[in-house]
């Protein structure tokens, strides 16, 4: 029941918040911080207790819809625990960031707490229907965050986000139903399905099922060409919303690939691995190039997410190239992909919160509106610099550990695709350095809205939410063992499942 408490604690606090209309705003904001902090502590305790290995820990299964064998089945293994922890960290950072929220803070806090439960639930779910329910709830929660607290063309962007990802989730549902119907034992239980993969002897049905699931997850991840909802949603979302959207929600897509597509459809995954690799590489190159051309810092960061998620797909696709690569290389690629999910959450979360600094000061993200910020805001400049270098994959920060392993592991199976993908880190380096140059150096320039007052550097609240994310990325970059010890057995298990 411990895991259930972790998952449901935020939404319980959310209900309490919604039920007390008299609650002052600051109290609600602090309640959010408290709830997220307690939840993170519980996750930390789970990490402490967790016995690294392929087995599922904190396993709970309760009958739910017995006619289709769907149950409330949750558990934790090496795949989900790091993502649960990353979710906990990011939501706490966003809670601290939003302490001074003026606009309906109680509802805002409740909405984020609801979103946190949905995200944690998706990562913990071991039943397809349960996964689907939580997965869709995240879309609902994020829709309200963008529509209600966004700026610019928020309603339109929120609607686009909702419809696009919702349509994607329908494809996912079709795939899940196909898995249900294709199995010997009619069940929605992931563990049972993975133990006895459905559709094993019909490549066509397996391939079509993978296509449906793949499209559903590709929209969420997002992968080329299903990514165009992302920049709009990010540009108009509040900083904390963007951080959660990029840091956590995108991972639901990539997590779905590792948790569902790879173990349950191993033959189809092997058969279509090269296609998956190519889609990943196109996302890598396309995301990097389009990001380079952006004139708006937040859109730029949004597109780099497409690039970074492309690396994940490259690594996971390479895991399926059973005929071309040995198990060691495929495992390395998989570990890299898993590591990238955590690393990207931390770094991109920090980057989006940092763009929030710009918005709060000058209501603009346009490169043309900002310049020379290193002089009045040196701390901001330093944080942005660290986050940017982390995101471009500088060794010493977490993304390097991920990308190095993805490239190293994927080269054997897909040499040309990997060499093309490697060039992505050069473009990413270029675009981040260009962004730093535009924002931080040159003549001091701020949007006209800000001319009356001097540009303020980051305050304590902003620092306390951003710096820990960067510090964790640094820690993971220099001493990755404590995460790798959890990820590696899980990756070995996934590669074994895929190789069947």
């Amino acid at each position: 029941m411990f895991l259930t408490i972790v998952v449901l604690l935020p939404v319980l606090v959310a209900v309490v918040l919604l039920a007390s209309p008299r609650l002052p705003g600051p109290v609600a904001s602090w309640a959010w911080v408290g709830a997220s902090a307690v939840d993170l502590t519980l996750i930390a305790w789970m990490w402490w207790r967790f016995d690294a290995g392929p087995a599922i820990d904190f396993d709970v299964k309760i009958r739910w819809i017995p006619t289709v064998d769907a149950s409330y089945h949750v558990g934790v293994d090496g795949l989900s625990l790091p993502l649960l922890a990353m979710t906990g960290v990011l939501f706490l950072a966003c809670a601290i960031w939003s302490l001074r929220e003026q606009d309906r803070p109680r509802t805002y806090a409740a909405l984020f707490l609801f979103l946190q439960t949905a995200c944690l639930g998706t990562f913990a779910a071991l039943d397809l229907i349960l996964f689907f329910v939580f997965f869709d709830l995240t879309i609902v929660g994020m829709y309200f965050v963008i529509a209600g607290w966004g700026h610019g063309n928020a309603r339109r962007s929120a609607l686009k986000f909702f419809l696009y990802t919702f349509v994607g989730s329908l494809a996912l549902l079709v795939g899940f139903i196909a898995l249900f119907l294709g199995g010997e034992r009619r069940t929605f239980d992931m563990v049972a399905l993975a133990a006895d993969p459905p559709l094993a002897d019909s490549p066509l049905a397996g391939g079509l099922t993978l296509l449906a699931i793949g499209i559903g997850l590709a929209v969420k991840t997002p992968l080329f060409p299903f990514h165009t909802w992302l920049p709009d949603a990010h540009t108009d979302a509040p900083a904390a919303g963007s951080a959660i959207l990029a840091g956590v929600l995108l991972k639901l897509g990539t997590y779905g690939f590792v948790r569902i597509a790879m173990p349950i459809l191993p033959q189809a995954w092997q058969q279509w691995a090269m296609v998956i690799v190519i889609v990943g590489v196109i996302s890598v190159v396309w995301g990097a190039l389009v990001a380079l051309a952006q004139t708006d810092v937040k859109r730029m960061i949004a597109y780099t997410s497409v690039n970074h998620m492309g690396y994940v797909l490259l690594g996971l696709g390479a895991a399926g190239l059973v005929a071309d690569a040995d198990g060691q290389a495929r495992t390395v690629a998989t570990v890299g992909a898993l590591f990238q999910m955590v690393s990207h959450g931390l770094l991109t979360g920090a980057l989006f919160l940092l763009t929030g600094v710009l918005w709060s000061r000058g209501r603009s993200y346009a490169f043309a509106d900002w310049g020379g910020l290193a002089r009045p805001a040196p701390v901001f400049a330093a944080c942005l610099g660290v986050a940017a270098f982390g995101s471009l994959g500088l060794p010493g920060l977490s993304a390097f550990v991920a990308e190095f392993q993805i490239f190293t592991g994927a080269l054997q199976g897909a040499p040309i695709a990997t060499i093309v993908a490697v060039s992505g880190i050069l473009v990413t380096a270029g675009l981040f350095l260009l962004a730093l140059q535009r924002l931080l150096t040159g003549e001091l320039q701020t949007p006209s809205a800000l001319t009356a007052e001097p540009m303020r550097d980051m305050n304590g609240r902003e620092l306390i939410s951003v710096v820990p994310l960067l510090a964790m990325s640094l820690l993971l970059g220099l001493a990755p063992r404590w995460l790798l010890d959890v990820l590696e057995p899980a990756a070995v298990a996934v590669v074994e499942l895929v190789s069947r």
Partner: protein
Amino acid sequence: MTGDGAAALAALVLLPSVAGIALLLSGRRADRLAGPVGVLVGMAGVALAAAVAIGRPVVSAPFLGIVPGGDLELAVDGLSAVLVVTVAVVAAAVTVFAVVDVPAGAARARFFGYLLLFTAAMLMTVTATTLPALLLAWEVMGATSYALIGYRWDVPGKLAAGTTAFLTTRAGDLGLYVAAGAALAGTGSLRLDDLATADGGWRDVAAAGIVLAALGKSAQLPFSGWLSAAMAGPSPVSALLHSATMVAAGGYLLLRIQPLLTATSWAANATAWAGVLTALVLGAVACGQRDLKQLLAASTAAQIGFVVLAAGAGATAGGAGQLVAHAAVKAGLFVAAGTWLTSLGTKQLIGLRGAARRHPGVGAAATVACLALAGVPPLSLWATKDEVLAGVDGAALRIVALAAAALSAAYAGRILVVVLGRPDSDAAAGGDASLDLEERGTRRVPPAATGIAAVLAVAAVGLGALALHPVADAGRAVLDAGGESTPTALELFASGSLALVVLALTLWRPGVVAIAVRSPLAGWVGLRGLLSPRPVLAVARAAAAVDDRGIDRAVRALAAGVRRLAVSASRADAHVVDGAVRAIAAGARSAGAAARRPQTGLLHQYYAQAAAGLAVLLVVLLVVR
């Protein structure tokens, strides 16, 4: 941890890193403390380097799992020992120079912080035995060089120069990522030593990747342009980057993986040619420069070209010697150039006329270093270059290499002509228009700068001892390179004479070399243009346009299409479906109205209707039967 002094090896890398990060985190508060901390750490580095050079320890820290060689492992062998000591000594010397050269009011904590981090990265590079360790150090070195070159970010163009340097070297670094993949695929391990045993095509891929990375870092053709931009950095940065570190790293790496180069059919030869052509082309470029730092930058690429040639030719000992000797010579010359820039306010050759006479101490050191750079016997680069040439097979390579050696005498001569010349008479009165071209000079040389230049000059002279057979053999023993060929007395004599003749010609007729100034050589023969980001930016903009107007429009069109479909469906719903319902209703109503008609209430009409009905029934009955 094994071997003697594993702790010393760990400290060699960790001490400067930790001190550097601490300085960076303290910010402006630590400005006053930064110089002393830098010098102390630099001195400790020299001691630690000496300790590990003797003890040859191995130290490793867990990093990646799954594969052997995933750890961050450092070890010191002969080549590493030479490099570690060189790097530590030059870094300490440059740090001392930086203490007197970086202005007091500047952000010194940031400067020395990055300098220490950079040094740590170089020390880790030359001791790394696994690819993760190498790549980590290698790229951190690139990133800190970006921060150092762009140190004065508030001056337009400085950070852009750092960006150019980082992006160019990173373009080469991509090769190292690919090489790591090839290593895993070909050997199942990430250890550098295992690379040469990789099977089949993977060995070629690994070699190609590493050569690419090394050429990028060492500013060899076609990557040389970034060195020109890097001159935007402060003088101490140039003195460090262009002597024992950064550019030296590429040369070192090629020497380190020399067995891999020879294991492939092509890599050794290709490397040798890349090196020798760089030596030739960049040597010519150096002859065409008007700016002393630009001249020195081009000559750096050219001199490292000999190291690369050595790696390709299998002359490891000669290459290592060239690397060390060049580090001493070039660091000394950059210290001199930086001192003059601070004192006289210019680094243009035209403004430096008689600079050696104005400041005799630095001048003497620079003169010695220039003579060494020219390859004059019995100084260091003469000896080491011949060591390299002795290992070179093939007449073509040898001739090009000799031509490149002659060019180094020519550009070194150009510097000597200028700095030893008589200053213009009115300059003594302080009215020289050619001074203070770039900044306001102090007209003062700190004694520490003179001291450092002198120490480096002594090293530049002393390493000439490598021409003596016993010394050279001792060096070979350290490097485990006993079997490599040594230059004959005749070869030494010939190359020394060549250098002297070219130098004499240059000093006698400076105009002949100066013609190069009016040629494309002055503009680095277009090498800087190669690094232009414009094509990539154009592609990026095109991609963004397709993304916005193609893909996203398709999505929006799909949504709009669904809406249009909905509108037509709603119209169809209103007109066709509902229309049918309404038509049926209307029909029913009119039928009802028609059915009401016969109900007149008149009995005779009902009778008539009944009669007509019966008649119809009768007819139907008759017809049916």
